C-alpha cells in the first residue's frame, strides 16, 4: 500500500472490494445454538438477582472494611455512590432493551402497510383484466420496438433512493449498442442524479429477439451492490421492449448476487403499479418523473398519491392541489378521469408535467390512453385534451 493520498471515490471502490464473509456453520447448527441459548438465557435470568446481590454485598464489605481499617470516615459515601451508579447502569440497560422492543414493535406496525419495490419483484399475481391489458400493451410495444428511435436507462437519483428512467434518442439498430451508448454518454451529474454509468459490465444482443446478455466479472462490485443495479436494470428493461435478460459471469451462465442470489435471467416486470412523483435535486436542476418505490393496489390509490408529499428529499408531488378529480373509470385500455369543477388547468409546464405523471402512472397499470373530461381548456402545450391522449413509450425524454 504505497498511496499516501486517497479521494472518497477510491475509498468507496475499495470498501466495495471487501470480501464476502460467510457463517461456516450449517443452518441446523445455528438453529441448535439459538434453541439452546434461549433455554440457557431463561435459566441465567433466574440466577442473576442473587448473584448480583452477593457481588454487591461483597464489594460493600470490602470497601467499608478497607475504609474502617484506614480510619477514613469521609470515604463512606464512595461505595454507596458506586453501588448506585451500577444500579443505574443496569436500569439504563433495561430501559434501552425495552425501548428497543418498543421500537421494533413500532417499526413492525409502521411496516404493515408498506410494500416496496423489492417485494414487488416477487409479486406475480395479477388480476385477469390486468393480464388482458398487459398482453395488449405488450403487442403494441413490440411494434414500437421495430422502429426504435429512443432508448431508456434507469439512473439512481442523487441519494440512490429512486431509480429515474431517462430516455435519450438513439439511432442504433442494435439494442445492446443503443444501451451502451446511452450509458456511456449519460450526464447524470448535470441532470442532478448519481454518477452511475458506465458500469463495469458487457452488454451484447442475445440470440432471441429483444434479448440482451449482461456479463459481469467475478469481482464486479455490482455483485455486492446488486439492489441498485437490479433496480436500475429493471427500469432500463421496462421501457425498451426487452423480452429477456440473460446474466453471465465471465461468460458462464448466471451471476451469484450477494442479495438476490444466483440469477440466470432477470424476471421482467412491465407493470409495477407505481405512481410517478416529481424528482428535482435543486431548484435549478432538471425535473424528472420518478416512479415510486411503493406499488399501489389500485389506479385510484396511485393517482391520489400523486398529490401527496412523501417527505423525501428531492421528491415532491407531481400533481398540484389545484387539480382534482371526482371519478376515475377504466374503459378497455383507456383510463377516463372526470376532473372536478374547481380544477384549474393552465397551459403551463407544471400542468403538462402533472398530466404526464398521470399518463405514466396509468401506463404502469397497463393502460395505453388517458382521457380527461371536464378540462377548462383543450390544449396544454402539445397535449390535446379534447381526445384520449396516447401514453408515450417512455418518460423523461432528453433531447
Amino acid at each position, binding site marked *: *500500500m*504505497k*498511496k*499516501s*493520498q*486517497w*479521494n*472518497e*471515490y477510491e*475509498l*468507496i471502490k*475499495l*470498501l*466495495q*472490494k*471487501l*470480501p*464476502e*464473509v*460467510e*457463517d*461456516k*456453520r450449517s*443452518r*441446523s447448527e*445455528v*438453529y441448535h*445454538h*439459538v434453541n439452546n*441459548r434461549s433455554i440457557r438465557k431463561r435459566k441465567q435470568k433466574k440466577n442473576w438477582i442473587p448473584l448480583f446481590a452477593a457481588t454487591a454485598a461483597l464489594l460493600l464489605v470490602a470497601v467499608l472494611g478497607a475504609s474502617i481499617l484506614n480510619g477514613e470516615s469521609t470515604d463512606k459515601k464512595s461505595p454507596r455512590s458506586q453501588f448506585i451508579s*451500577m444500579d443505574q*447502569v443496569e436500569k*439504563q*440497560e433495561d430501559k434501552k432493551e425495552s425501548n*428497543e422492543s418498543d*421500537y*421494533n*414493535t413500532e*417499526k*413492525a*406496525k*409502521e*411496516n*404493515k402497510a*408498506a*410494500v*416496496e419495490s*423489492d*417485494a414487488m419483484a416477487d409479486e406475480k399475481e395479477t388480476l385477469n383484466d390486468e393480464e388482458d391489458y398487459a398482453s395488449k400493451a405488450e403487442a403494441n410495444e413490440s411494434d414500437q420496438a421495430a422502429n426504435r428511435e429512443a432508448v431508456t436507462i434507469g439512473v439512481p437519483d442523487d*441519494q*440512490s*433512493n429512486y431509480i429515474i428512467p431517462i430516455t435519450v434518442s438513439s439511432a442504433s439498430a442494435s439494442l445492446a449498442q443503443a444501451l451502451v451508448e446511452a450509458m456511456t454518454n449519460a450526464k447524470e451529474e448535470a441532470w442532478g442524479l448519481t454518477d452511475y454509468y458506465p458500469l463495469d459490465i458487457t452488454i451484447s444482443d442475445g440470440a432471441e429477439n429483444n434479448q440482451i446478455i449482461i456479463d459481469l466479472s467475478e469481482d464486479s462490485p455490482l455483485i*455486492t451492490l*446488486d*439492489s*441498485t443495479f437490479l433496480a436500475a436494470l429493471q427500469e432500463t428493461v421496462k421501457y425498451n421492449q426487452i423480452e429477456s435478460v440473460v446474466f453471465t459471469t465471465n461468460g458462464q451462465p448466471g451471476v451469484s448476487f*450477494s*442479495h438476490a442470489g444466483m440469477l440466470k435471467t432477470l424476471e421482467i416486470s412491465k407493470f409495477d403499479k407505481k405512481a410517478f412523483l416529481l424528482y428535482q435535486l435543486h431548484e435549478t436542476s432538471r425535473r424528472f418523473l420518478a416512479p415510486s418505490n411503493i406499488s399501489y393496489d389500485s389506479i385510484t390509490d396511485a393517482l391520489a398519491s400523486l398529490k401527496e408529499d412523501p417527505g*423525501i*428529499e428531492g421528491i415532491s408531488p407531481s400533481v398540484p392541489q389545484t387539480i382534482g378529480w371526482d371519478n376515475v373509470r377504466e374503459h378497455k385500455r383507456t383510463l377516463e378521469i372526470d376532473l372536478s369543477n374547481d380544477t384549474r388547468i393552465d397551459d403551463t409546464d407544471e400542468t403538462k408535467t402533472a398530466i404526464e405523471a398521470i399518463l405514466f402512472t396509468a401506463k404502469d397499470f397497463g393502460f395505453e390512453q388517458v382521457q380527461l373530461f371536464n378540462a377548462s381548456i383543450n390544449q396544454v402545450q402539445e397535449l390535446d385534451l379534447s381526445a384520449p391522449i396516447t401514453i408515450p413509450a417512455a418518460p423523461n425524454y432528453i433531447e
Partner: protein
Amino acid sequence: MDSVFQELYEKYHKDLYQFLFYMVKKHEVAEDIVQEVYIRVLKSYDRFEGKSSEKTWLYSIARNAAIDYFRKEKGWKQRLLENFDLDKQPVKDVQPLPEEIAIQNAEVQGIYQSLHSCTLDQRSVIILRYIQGLSIMETAAVLDWTESKVKTTQHRALKAIKKKMEEKGREEGNSIEKIPME
C-alpha cells in the same frame, strides 16, 4: 425446525452475518451475536407482518445486538470511568487479520483495518452503505436516523478512513506515490 427461523435464515442470514462480522471483526463473536439476533427476532416476530422492511428491521436488531456486545465487552468498571459514551470511542485494532482478509491485497487489508478507526456509528453507516449495499433511505431506517444524519455521518466516516489510510501509506515506506486530490 421453526418455520420462521427457517425463512429468516434463508433470506437474511448471509447479510446479517456479514454485517455483524464487519462490525465486530471476529467470526466467533459474529456467530454468537447472530444467534442473539434470532432470539430477539423470534421473540417479537408475531408482532411483525410487514415484508418490505423486514430487512431494515433485522439490521436494526443486529446493530443493537452488536452495540450490546461492545458494551458488555468493555465491562462496568470502564463504563463508569468513560461516562458510558460508546459511540465516541474508536476501537483499537490489535487482532490478527481473519483469513478472508489476510488473502486480499494490501489495499483491501488497509481499508479493512481503517474501517475500525471509525466510531461505531460511522462504521455502521459505512458497512450498511458500501458493504451491504443499502440506500441512504434504508440506512436511515435501520439506524432510526434522518437521511441527513446518515449523510453527515457517512461523510465523517470516509474522512476518518481517508486519514487512517493516508497514515498507513506514509508509514509503509518512504517511496510515496503522489496522487492528486479530486
